[in-house]
């Protein structure tokens, strides 16, 4: 299970470089930015889920003492109405602009309609409260099924969605696509066991603790500076350029530390409003912070919706047919991750005949964004539950069934392409061999409660994309590493460690800094589980160039040909004269006599890192009288490629697992009849607390990724995929009921028990 290659730095657990600032309160996050002369912004948000703006009267706000600037959508530049590639996903800037501030119509509760900059937050809020909007409240639709009704109100005016290559007659279809391979009818005809169910999931939020924020200066030369906590400063720059209709070179994005993202801090929200208010106030800095309710109601949660799945199995216990219909609510604009969901649908299994329909449906809820393996958790809930049911029905061991049907190199994915070398089987085997799976579970512990165990698999892609790194050598033998990947969970260190490994120095001797968009080459978002892989690869390349240059310098010092200088184990030495040898540090001290500073650049644009697989095992205890459920033991097994810094790999697995557990048990957007989220606070959104969890055990399966010099694979996303299904299967093991609606909260458990008992 352990990669065989010997490393000096990789695989160790150094203290992260930014740790000291973060445990002392010194680290500067978005809300900590304070600039001289700064104004404070506030946003007026729609109180209605769906309403036309008949008029807006900002005069009272403008007249208030201390108010410097007021804006509405009329102040937003007109943006192009076409799809533009963002590297990580595509965007329609006209929709983006309308999303950031509603032009004619609020499409979800919390949709911004005006904003104010004032001398204090309190004045700004009072001014916002003084803005009068004349609303025409429209019927709202918040579920996929409501929004697809022929008489549903059209949410995006003029939108016509694509339905399998034709224009959709329904107003709220963002798109409908299909993947179909093999002979699906014959597959089911040949099946001896067929199980079909629909699985519903509520919309859920990433739940990062730091609210969105943005501080901007738009100066008289039309240069815009923006401070924000984001997963991708360059992505923010591209989005701002599109929405503000400026050249990218006029925009400088300065990323602050970021308090969690999980996909939700890729889109922009308040940043362009701060910029426009700054422009309107004569170039004064303007800071806007969201509050927690804003975050829930008006940032980018992950979709709710449903997955209807039918699986057919033959007498040999092989899945030979799979037919899925996936419908996601995109929010107030088209663009849910239903595409990725479809691509993950059958990824853990080798199924010859498959059909997948994906529907992206516009509803009156916040526009969805990515959330850790977006879409994959939804489909895993369906397929892993049905696989569990098949195993129960046919009396098959769930692990052996997964092994017998496992996708592997050469398997055709549900969306068509063939899998390269993947670690699915190794991961299932590691789960099979884990201490947890082999431990007994007392299903009736005698305290009136019952226990159950569930297992589930999951898959995510792990993307590659673009990253840039600059290195420069200090004369004391340390190396500065400049990168553009914002660090959400220790990536500075995992990237620095890769450079250190190449340079033969310690992790501490590589000093990483995340810089603004003016100061390093283009770098895609910290997301898609790509950062340690792609930015680490860029660091590797930059370090290789550094060694090349330093080899030249050594040859200068020793006055021998370059090709006679070797570099191994952190030492430069002559291949012919054993007396001539210098460590990296020694050579660094002599650079001033060899031509001055040495620096290098590494830039990559990588293919996907190959898929990552996770298998989770969940034990839980249920009070059948109340439906109260507690997870009492949990193990996450995952193919992680090579773990650069194992502590932070474990941390990703633990954190993703716990988000998934929260999703399974309690988290949801609870919508009231007016299309409004009734529980837009941490109090009622019910994310897991320390007391709701056991230790999260981790098993790292290290199958090195052949596409990366150290074998790195993305690790951040697969851990959120299996938990919902693992919890569902454990509930079934405990109570004999199958819950097909998430969250599987105590109320639903009680209802199901009641139905079961007649």
């Amino acid at each position: 299970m352990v990669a065989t290659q010997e490393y000096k730095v990789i695989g160790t657990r150094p203290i992260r470089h930014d740790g000291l600032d973060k445990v002392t309160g010194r680290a500067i996050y978005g809300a900590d930015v304070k600039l001289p002369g700064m104004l404070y912004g506030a946003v007026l948000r729609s109180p209605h889920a769906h309403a036309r703006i008949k008029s807006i009267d900002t005069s009272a706000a403008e007249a208030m003492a201390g108010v410097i600037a007021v804006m509405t959508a009329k102040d937003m530049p007109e943006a192009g109405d076409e799809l533009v590639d963002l590297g990580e996903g595509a965007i329609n800037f006209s929709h983006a602009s309308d999303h950031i501030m509603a032009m004619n119509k609020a499409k979800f509760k919390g949709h911004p309609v005006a904003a104010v900059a004032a001398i204090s937050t309190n004045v700004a809020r009072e001014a916002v409260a003084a803005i009068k909007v004349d609303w025409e409240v429209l019927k709202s639709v918040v579920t996929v099924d409501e929004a697809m009704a022929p008489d549903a109100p059209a949410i995006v005016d003029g939108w016509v969605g694509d339905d399998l290559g034709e224009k959709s007659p329904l107003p709220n279809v963002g798109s409908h696509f299909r993947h179909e391979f093999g002979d699906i009818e014959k597959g089911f005809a040949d099946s001896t066991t067929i199980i079909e169910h629909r699985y519903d999931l509520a919309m859920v939020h990433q739940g990062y603790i730091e609210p969105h924020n943005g501080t901007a200066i738009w100066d008289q030369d039309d240069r815009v500076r923006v401070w924000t906590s984001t997963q991708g400063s360059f992505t923010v720059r591209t989005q701002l350029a599109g929405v503000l209709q400026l050249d990218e070179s006029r925009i400088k994005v300065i990323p602050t530390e970021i308090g969690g993202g999980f996909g939700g801090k890729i889109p922009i929200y308040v940043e362009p409003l701060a910029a426009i208010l700054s422009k309107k106030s004569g170039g004064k800095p303007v800071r806007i912070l969201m509050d927690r309710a804003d975050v829930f109601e008006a940032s980018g949660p992950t979709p709710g919706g449903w997955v209807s799945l039918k699986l057919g199995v033959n007498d040999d216990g092989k899945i030979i047919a799979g037919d899925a219909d996936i419908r996601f609510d995109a929010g107030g604009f088209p663009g849910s991750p239903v595409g990725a969901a479809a691509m993950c649908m059958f990824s853990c299994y080798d199924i010859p005949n498959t059909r997948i329909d994906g529907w992206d449906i516009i509803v009156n809820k916040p526009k969805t964004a990515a959330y850790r393996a977006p879409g994959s958790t939804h489909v895993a809930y369906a397929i892993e539950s049905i696989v569990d049911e098949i195993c129960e029905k046919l009396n098959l061991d769930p692990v052996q069934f997964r092994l017998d049907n496992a996708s592997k190199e050469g398997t055709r994915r549900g969306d068509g392409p063939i899998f390269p070398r993947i670690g699915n089987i190794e991961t299932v085997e590691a789960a099979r061999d884990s201490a947890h799976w082999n431990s007994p579970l007392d299903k009736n512990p005698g305290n009136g409660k019952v226990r159950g165990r569930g297992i589930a698999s999951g898959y995510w892609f792990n993307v590659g994309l673009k990253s840039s790194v600059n290195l420069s050598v200090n004369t004391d033998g340390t190396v500065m590493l400049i990168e553009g990947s914002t660090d959400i969970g220790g990536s500075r260190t995992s990237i620095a460690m890769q450079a250190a490994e190449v340079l033969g120095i310690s992790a501490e001797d590589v000093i990483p800094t995340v810089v603004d968009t003016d100061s390093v080459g283009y770098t895609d978002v910290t997301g898609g589980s790509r950062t340690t892989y792609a930015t680490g690869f860029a660091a590797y390349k930059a370090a290789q160039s550094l060694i090349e240059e330093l080899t030249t310098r050594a040859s200068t010092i020793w006055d021998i040909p370059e090709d006679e200088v070797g570099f191994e184990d952190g030492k430069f030495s002559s291949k012919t004269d054993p007396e001539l040898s210098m460590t990296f540090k020694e050579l660094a001290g002599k650079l001033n006599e060899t031509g001055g500073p040495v620096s290098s650049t590494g830039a990559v644009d990588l293919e996907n890192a190959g898929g990552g697989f996770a298998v989770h095992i969940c034990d839980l205890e249920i009070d059948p009288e109340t439906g109260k459920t507690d997870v009492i033991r949990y193990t996450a097994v995952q193919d992680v490629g090579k773990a650069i810094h194992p502590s932070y790999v474990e941390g990703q697995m633990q954190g993703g697992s716990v988000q998934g557990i929260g999703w399974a048990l309690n988290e949801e957007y609870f919508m009231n009849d007016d299309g409004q989220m009734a529980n837009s606070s941490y109090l009622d959104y019910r994310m897991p607390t320390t007391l709701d969890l056991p230790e999260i055990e981790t098993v790292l399966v290290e199958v090195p990724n052949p596409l990366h010099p150290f074998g790195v694979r993305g690790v951040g996303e697969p851990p959120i995929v299996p938990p919902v299904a693992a919890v569902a299967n454990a509930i079934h093991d405990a109570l004999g009921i199958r819950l097909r609606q998430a969250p599987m909260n105590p109320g639903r458990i009680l209802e199901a028990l009641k139905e079961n008992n007649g």
Partner: protein
Amino acid sequence: MARVFIPFALRKMTGGATDVQVSGATLREVIDNLEEMFPGTRERLVQDDRIKPGMEAVVGEQPTREGLRAKVSEDVEVHFIPHIAGG
């Protein structure tokens, strides 16, 4: 010849064929030749001389990072799939 998998939404243009053999040394040539075989397919795959936004071309096993310039070898599979993002 590359084996080009036709996205479902385009299968009307290919008479229902799910995959077709198409010649071409680069993705651009493959798509051009596909257009000759099945008029109308090109504009569904390409915009402004690039793969359409929101879509990725898989040549072999992975989405290509080289766009229409991607080399297409004999017997390789070509797919057009939705763009993969992540969180």
